[in-house]
């Protein structure tokens, strides 16, 4: 008997709807889908660093981001629930993690996953030039399974890529022929 394909769809604020719709179109109907969201821990670290920089104010500075983490967790659960409804498939698994985003995603697909669906980040009005944020870049580089990179919107036309730079520039992306 053939096992159904196990797929993880990584949902991120700003791109998750498109990512999910794309996955729904592509995935076989019997695929075992898990929706993954990671609440970033480094946002708190940024603000805690800034608070630590305020030398001498420790008595007033009680973890200013505690509330943010609670709200972010609530919203993450809400995103996952909404996404499951939007996908409309039975027995969709919801996975909510918190931590260093890129590490958590790679950790979540470390074993027994046949495909990870990821949305590109960045400007939607053109193709490129840099469409992967730091976390997405890391995930694409480090995922131990096949990765499907999707457009969260309809992709713009090929004419949105600027013409190649003049010949003397050092970063020539392509060279025709041998």
């Amino acid at each position: 008997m053939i096992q159904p394909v196990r797929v993880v769809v990584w949902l991120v604020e700003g791109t998750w709807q498109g990512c999910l719709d794309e996955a729904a179109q592509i995935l076989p109907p019997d695929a075992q889908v898990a929706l993954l969201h990671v609440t970033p821990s480094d946002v708190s670290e940024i603000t805690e660093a800034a608070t630590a920089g305020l030398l001498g104010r420790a008595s007033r500075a009680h973890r200013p981001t505690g509330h943010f983490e609670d709200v972010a967790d609530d919203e993450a659960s809400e995103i996952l629930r909404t996404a499951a409804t939007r996908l409309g498939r039975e027995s969709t698994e919801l996975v909510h993690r918190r931590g260093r985003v890129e590490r958590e995603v790679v950790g979540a697909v470390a074993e027994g996953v046949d495909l990870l669906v990821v949305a590109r980040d960045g400007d939607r009005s053109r193709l490129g030039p840099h469409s992967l944020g730091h976390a997405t870049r890391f995930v694409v580089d480090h995922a131990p399974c096949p990765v499907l990179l999707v457009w969260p919107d309809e992709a713009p036309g090929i004419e949105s890529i600027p013409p190649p730079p003049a010949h003397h520039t050092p970063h020539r992306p392509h060279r025709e022929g041998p």
Partner: protein
Amino acid sequence: MRFQALTQADQILRAYYLSTVSSPIAETLAVMLLVATLACAVARPRGWPEAVFAVPAAVLLLLLGVLPLSQAGAELTSLAPTIGFLAAVLVLADMCDRYGLFEAAGTWMATGSRGRPIALLALVFVVASIVTAVLGLDATVLLLTPIVLTTVARLRLRAKPHAYACTHLANSASLLLPVSNLTNLLAFRASGLSFARFGVIMALPWLAAIIVEWVVLRRSFATDLVGRSEVKVTTPLRIPVFASVVVALTLVGFFVASLLHVNPAFAALGGAVILAVPALVRRRAQVRDIGFALDVPFLAFVLALGLVVKGVSLHGLGPLVVHLVPNGTSLGSLLLAAVVAAVLANLINNLPAVLLLLPAAAVAGPGVVLAVLIGVNAGPNLTYVGSLATLLWRRVLRQRGEELPTSEFLRLGVVTVPPVLLASTVALWVSLRLVG
């Protein structure tokens, strides 16, 4: 006349520094106590307030005779009005929070952005720059940032660019007014400038810093400023009119007081009292809340740190610093002053850095004082706590079993701090030529 007298006094001070035969033992003791004070302030053994370590350090310097009583007395007398000003601003900011001014700002940003992350970032820039300038960087870091973060989370957008906007602007947008940063209050005292003149000269450097931060953050986080929030903002926008009017009047009061040659600290005090009394009467706040906002341990810490740094200045570093701080208002001198200040702020934290540099900078004139200020205010975006402290702070995090911060904020600091220093210092140079 007053200016001449000041200059003469400073020349005597300079001569005194340069002629002091630094006793190696006194110097070593003073430096060791400063390092210990800073180390304890960051690591905070047993979670005690920083003053618990700083005050005994200052007392020890006095007892050992490293810091003569007369010098300590003079330093305390000269710091006292600044501490009073600081206390009034702390209460003012806390009251604004209690009246719901920051909550209202959060709702305004959420509604005004209409779910677009770039528009939201722009509004965060506007609010954080104004809050930092008027109510000080403490207000931005401790009171505004949590609101910004929950606002972004509720809109289901990515929070990181906005978190960096708040923490960066708390430092680099704190250039405008004497009240924007404790370092400014200290420099204000040393510069001999009036409140209004300070604000007028620093307007361009302040704008330059904000524009550079915008360009760099907008570019660095282009991949995160994506999508559009579909969350409807249901919280009605309730602007606390009374608190807003009082803050606006306080701001006007700063300028009017300075034109009338009255200490602008009284305007801050007035604003704080006008907000605090109705809050107390209507039980929006209790007396102990005001005591908490006053943050006596912090005020004591600043005084004690002032004394410890004075001890260090008197013996070893004072004369050294006089050589480090350039004397002149050419663009080169201003840039050098800003860079020296930024480096020192990143070595030992900006508060002791400014205390160390100010006596020498004051001798060189208000232009150099303001350049030093650009360095100590914008510089900390590189390491926030200063590298000495960063090392300790990382150890503390590790002990608590928390993850170490990524190198991301260092990378972002490397791309923002040098252009901010350059742009703001050039703007200062232009400003000094226009109005100086």
